[in-house]
């Protein structure tokens, strides 16, 4: 094989502060990491500059790169900062207010100052057309082309090009929505249309219209961004493919991303989840909880059989931070993750009842935790970590920043220890306990709602604050093993390198199981597979895996249970029912009796691994002694400070074993090994910690 044919891929993840880049060198197979400050005004600047620097350092020409896989937070930022397009919405006559009146309920029972997320299209730009299709897809009242034409021209007069279309029951028959598109084409190709029957062809009009409007709202930003990126890469001589990560953890062709940018809202977190899935596979763990804690939030997601668990709906831009029901629903396949306001910068405070609370308010990076000495005087999680001895004041961010222990103590004393009449150490311990429970509680509910028992899981810790807190979160969840992967700091970018190309397709197909003809069901899936094949062909992929799922319920229920569809064969429908019953029992503990079952949605996912990248390479033995000193740290089980050995992670060798209490440091994060725990270094440099429970 000649050198020129050896190709490589680059993964790029844009975060709030840093843009991370990762590649595996085509010849040495070393992992090469780049970090560059994000350029919020035009994120493509940092991406392009980062690639230049990374390749220069690796001495690899851009011509050898055949794939750039990219995760972006642009979609979600556009929603949060309300910087999207002026959108026009077309609805069925009588239903322009669906977007505004939402679910008509309150997410907080007692809050008289309740706020709902404001509609992204003001009422004046929500316009109706006379038409009606029923739930079986039959046209009750036809749509008049002339009316559509007049309406589109009106939008044009208003300077509106981005149009969302959501007609009632369009999931059952997209005809009228497609007619609107063809009228728009006849007028000239001046509009960008988002049709609900393509973006989210599912029953329930509010989540569908919300998703479609989000799509239209963020679309111009995404299009211009991807265009700049493509032009920049081409201008540098890049001849390979650019792939964009979707919320569901599969990469998309740039043109698909431009048409349905609502699929990119959880792009970044999905990349992180894929990294966790990679480690689950590498270490052969069946069930993994990925735990990522940074400065402002903590995220958790479940990985089963080396795949992130997917959900079908999530909320963007929650108006009351982290409160379920206070955001814009987006009904699209998504790596299911929970995010709560619990990070290193989360502020500790005392509530009306004298209870110690942590977050969701955070100190941000400025003024930041009290110990930063930048003027912050309210105690944060990082301040507690410092007081408890978990962080080295002189080795924060590898020594780039010196932390002030006295300021941390003073802040905790003033706001927590003083009012509660306890010692500073007790207060710091309390902050740690509360923030750990906040995270563990959210993760527990997340797991249980999906029918998983978290006790059987391994926890994989990512993020700057993840490894410090992983043990306490794991302990509260009853998890007995924690994995600290190598390169946890750039995990999301690494996840991009191991991501499959994937596309997800859904069809609402409401039928009682007993009335289904096998052929009919098969043909629905055949149609879906055709769609999937088209989208993979765009990525020049012809070999792929297919997964068939059904959303089912008992006739009369309103919420579906997702079931893996058994392959067609003998007594197919009976086996489908059995699969449903077994999943139902797993989730809810009991069956309601011999009631009829129905199918609501058919889902199909096609995926293809375009690349087979080895992220982890064999760790070499290092001569330098890893043990670099000792320091005191507090452990609540034994309720006192104990002396811990402190190790430098980069100097650990394969198969080395470290017994707790101990501390392992690297530039980006710190690992705390409590008493009675044991950590082992594997041949790639990942650290696996287990501990004995009990008194």
């Amino acid at each position, binding site marked *: 094989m000649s050198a020129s044919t050896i190709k490589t891929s680059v993964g790029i993840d844009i975060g709030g502060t840093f843009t991370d880049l990762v590649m595996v060198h085509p010849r040495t197979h070393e992992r090469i990491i780049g970090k560059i400050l994000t350029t919020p005004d035009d994120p493509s600047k940092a991406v392009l500059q980062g690639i230049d620097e990374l390749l220069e350092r690796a001495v690899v020409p851009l011509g050898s790169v055949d794939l750039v896989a990219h995760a972006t937070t642009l979609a979600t930022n556009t929603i949060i900062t309300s910087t999207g397009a002026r959108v026009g919405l077309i609805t069925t006559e009588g239903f322009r207010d669906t977007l505004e009146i939402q679910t008509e309920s309150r997410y907080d029972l007692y809050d008289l100052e309740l706020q709902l997320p404001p509609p992204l299209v003001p009422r004046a730009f929500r316009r109706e057309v006379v038409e009606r299709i029923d739930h079986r897809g039959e046209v009750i009242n036809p749509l008049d082309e002339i009316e559509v034409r007049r309406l589109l021209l009106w939008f044009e007069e208003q300077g509106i090009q981005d149009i969302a279309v959501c007609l009632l029951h369009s999931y059952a028959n997209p005809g009228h929505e497609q007619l609107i598109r063809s009228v728009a084409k006849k007028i000239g190709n001046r509009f960008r249309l988002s049709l609900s029957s393509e973006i989210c062809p599912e029953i329930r009009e509010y989540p569908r219209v919300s998703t479609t409007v989000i799509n239209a709202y963020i679309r111009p930003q995404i299009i211009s961004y991807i265009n700049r990126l493509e032009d920049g890469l081409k201008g540098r001589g890049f001849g390979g493919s650019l792939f964009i990560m979707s919320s569901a953890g599969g990469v998309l062709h740039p043109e698909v991303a431009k048409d349905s940018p609502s699929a990119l809202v959880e792009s970044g977190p999905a990349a992180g989840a894929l990294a966790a899935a990679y480690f689950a596979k590498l270490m052969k763990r069946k069930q993994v909880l990925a735990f990522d804690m940074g400065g402002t939030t903590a995220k958790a997601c479940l990985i089963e059989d080396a795949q992130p668990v997917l959900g079908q709906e999530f909320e963007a831009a929650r108006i009351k931070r982290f409160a379920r029901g206070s955001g814009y629903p987006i009904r699209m396949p998504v790596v299911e993750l929970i995010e709560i306001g619990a990070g290193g910068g989360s502020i500790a405070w005392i509530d009306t009842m004298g209870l110690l609370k942590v977050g969701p308010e955070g100190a941000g990076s400025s003024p930041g935790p009290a110990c930063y000495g930048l003027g912050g005087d309210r105690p944060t999680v990082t301040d507690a970590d410092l007081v408890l001895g978990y962080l080295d004041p002189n080795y924060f961010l590898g020594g780039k920043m010196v932390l002030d222990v006295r300021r941390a103590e003073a802040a905790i004393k003033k706001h927590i220890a003083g009012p*509660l009449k306890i010692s500073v150490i007790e207060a710091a*311990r309390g902050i740690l*306990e509360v923030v750990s429970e906040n995270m563990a509680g959210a993760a527990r509910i997340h797991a249980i709602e999906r029918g998983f028992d978290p006790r059987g899981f391994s926890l994989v810790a990512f993020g700057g604050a993840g490894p410090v807190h992983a043990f306490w979160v794991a302990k509260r969840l009853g998890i007995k093993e924690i994995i600290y992967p190598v390169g946890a700091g750039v995990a999301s970018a690494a996840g991009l390198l191991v991501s499959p190309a994937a596309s997800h397709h859904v069809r609402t197909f409401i039928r009682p199981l007993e009335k289904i003809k096998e052929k009919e069901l098969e043909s629905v899936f055949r149609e879906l597979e055709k769609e999937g094949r088209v989208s993979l062909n765009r990525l020049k992929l012809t070999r792929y895996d297919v997964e068939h799922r059904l959303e089912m319920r008992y006739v009369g229920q309103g919420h579906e249970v997702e079931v893996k569809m058994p392959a067609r064969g003998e007594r197919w429908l009976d086996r489908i029912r059995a699969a449903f019953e077994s999943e139902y029992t797993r989730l809810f503990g009991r069956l309601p009796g011999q009631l009829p079952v129905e199918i609501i949605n058919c889902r199909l996912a096609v995926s293809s691994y375009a690349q087979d990248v080895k992220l982890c390479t064999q760790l070499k033995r290092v001569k330098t002694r890893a043990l670099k000193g000792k320091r005191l740290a507090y452990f609540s089980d034994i309720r006192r400070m104990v002396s811990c050995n402190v190790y430098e992670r980069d100097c650990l060798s394969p198969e080395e074993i470290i017994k707790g209490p101990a501390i392992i440091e690297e530039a980006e994060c710190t690992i705390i090994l409590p008493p009675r725990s044991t950590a082992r270094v594997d041949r790639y440099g990942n650290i696996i910690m287990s501990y004995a429970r009990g008194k």
Partner: protein
Amino acid sequence: MKTVIDSSNLEVMWSRLNSIADEAAITLVRTSFSTVVRESKDLSCVLFDLQGRSLAQSTMSIPSFTGTLPLTMRHFLRRYPAKDWRPGDVVMTNDPWLGSGHLPDVNIAVPVFYGRKLVGFAGLVAHVTDIGGKTLSATAAEIYEEGLRLPISRLVREGKWSEDIVDLIRANVRVPEEVMGDLNALVAAGEIVQRRIVEFMKEFELKDLTALADEIQGRAETAMRKRIRMLPRGTYHHSLVTDGFDEPLKIQLALHVLNDRIELDYAGSAPQQRSGINSPWCYTFSYSVFALKSVLTPEVPNNEGTFRPFTVKAPERSVLNPLFPAATGARSTTGHFLVTAVYGALAQIVPDRVLAECGAPRPIVVVRGMRDDGRPFSQTLFCMGSMGARPNDDGISCIAYPTNTAVTPVEVVEAGVPLRIIRKEIIRDSGGPGKFRGGCGQRQEVELLTEASAMISVRADRTRNPARGAAGGAPGSCTKILLNGKEINPKGITVAHKGDRLQVLTPGSGGYGDPLTRDSGKIADDVVNGLVSPEAALRDYGKVVDEFTGAINAA
């Protein structure tokens, strides 16, 4: 049990209990058959200690249930003292006086055993698909007409379902399979609480819940008393008039602030009615204390301690404390007004913390008929009113208040039953003018598609008495219930035929503050968005606004 519960441990344990209640509620929603539960979330889950005192409740809860369920638990314990409970028991009732005010709500409790020791209970309540009797309206004169009444009974004893009770229920409801599905959903949710509490106690090394309960309830109680002490002592009167069934109904409240407790006395309110608009005392209590809590300690998780500083009195045989065999099916058309009454009284002392009157109660329509293939159907449509203007903000349009049911999606309704929803939209000029505008009501129009005729039963109010404004704000619009354009009985049952169209116009809310002081940018936005007509802008706000550009000219 650790003898001292410190602030961080307590926070950790308390939030765990709340999330256990949440998990049970979510299970109930996902496994229920009743649209009223699965789409509209008409349910609650409450955890109790050994004495039946409430510890925590689900976030997804209806205000009425959060007050009634703790009372129901006491009744359960009176009937079956703690020593009589066994693992695997399920006790239930739907009695309006012992439960939550009307028959469709089935209340259950399951015991939580830690090892062999009883440590507490889980209480759950949900509105089941059907309970027999007349379709819910206000037309019943006595409870006997409203359906099956189940006294406190053991539905399940040590894991074994009582065949007699199951048969009795099945024989008395229209859709027995679905009702049994609903009961199963309740029991499944209760079992989840049992498992989680045991895990919780193991993890925190608790032997019982008593000390924890004392602490949690004590703190909530202290917080509430502290807030009450900040109110000026005295007696504050407020009265209001509802449409009633066949004549206007008076609700009279005296709110006594007494040092660190509050006493509410509804003496002087209308007598018990020979229609279904009676609000049993438990329901009266529930909405009264909900209103107080939302003003005084909205941020404190709800439990027994919250209620301790409150006393609620209503004369026997009054509409707010009717005695058996009063009919109670439409209790919400009276009970929801109690929040208004309490806010009205509090407005005299804390005007900056209460809402203007809300477009409530929201009309409820039940359509019952027969499909063309002969199968029966029944659909409940909650038609949400609105939330009153706030001292610093507009009210919210088309939202449930004070109750908290969610809407069933139009597409789900149409896919399930032979009804077509023609429109569902905000009503222009329905929000009461004010410095802050009241929330707007909505117009919902429904067409019957079946060959057979159907019965439409309605529970609505405010057809003659609009939600009033506060601090100089003006009233919102009235409720209207029309069939083919003609008004029908807003608390009655009406027959509809194929092609008939029912229109429900839900009430708008009162405004807050003088409309002439409203920000002109907001007036312009409202006009451009069609929430306020140019005519109303001139009449109510004194501004000439261009309907298309929003440009304001001097009047």
